[in-house]
């Protein structure tokens, strides 16, 4: 799939997992906390469709290098764009060739945010870094 400036519904988005509480290794599950929006309500994701795992980890390592706190890259939660949009959220991609995007349009209510995060986590596929 050739990436367009607009994100396609079938495109895979990756949410990098930087906390051990973002996933349950034994159950092979992504936890809702991985999808809880940060306080600026812009959830950072990357457009990972069609990329090899090594390329995904390279992007993930670059993402955590940009964070102000030192983080570990545990893996990625892979989710389809249409699942995100079904929750009435909007995906705002950075200009290509950047593969970064922000998921915006989150409600202010923390209970509603958690409900959406639960649905996204239930639909996401966990890929752990070896």
């Amino acid at each position: 799939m050739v990436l367009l400036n607009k994100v396609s519904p079938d495109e895979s988005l990756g949410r990098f997992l930087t906390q051990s509480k973002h996933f349950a290794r034994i159950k092979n599950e992504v936890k809702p906390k991985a999808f809880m929006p940060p306080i600026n309500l812009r959830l950072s994701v990357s457009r990972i469709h069609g990329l090899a795992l090594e390329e995904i980890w390279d992007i993930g390592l670059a993402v955590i290098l940009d964070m102000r706190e030192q983080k570990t890259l545990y893996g990625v939660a892979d989710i389809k764009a249409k699942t995100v949009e079904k929750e009435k959220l909007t995906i705002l991609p950075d200009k290509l060739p950047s593969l970064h995007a922000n998921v915006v349009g989150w409600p202010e209510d923390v209970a509603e945010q958690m409900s959406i995060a639960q649905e996204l986590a239930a639909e996401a596929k966990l890929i752990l870094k070896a």
Partner: protein
Amino acid sequence: MKTESYAIGRQNPVVFHRNLGVSWYAGKIREEADKIRQSFARTISFGDKLSQILEELLLARHEYSKDNWDGYGAKRIDEQSFENALRFVLSLPLGIPSPEIDVVPNGQVMFTWSKGKRQLFSVIVGSMNELSYAGLYGVTKRYGVEYFTDGISDTILDNINKVDL
């Protein structure tokens, strides 16, 4: 009155309504209530589980003691949310399985009961005694806000039980 006795029966028996009195008698009652609560917490059957939850809460307080723990500007653990979370734990009815404890980006404490991706319930304890909750049971979603004043509401307890742990 039937409703009230049912609600009280579902609460932890060592949880007393908040004593906001300022008199000498109110102070004595508060001291006695604390003693009973502490002795109950030391019993083998209940004490072990409670100590484990309290220990996890304290660990979370340490783990999330600094701002920006998520790399995206998350707030450190909110002290009032932590205190309310302690009171919430002490109010849980006996027999409720231990929840997972975590902190969300706004610094509030979160409890989660989970039996799988689509069988889970979370409560986020706010600093103003608000309990923001969300549950996912198959394809059914439940979320809302309840207030924690004289115990945990039936809505919250019913959702915890719905997880079928």
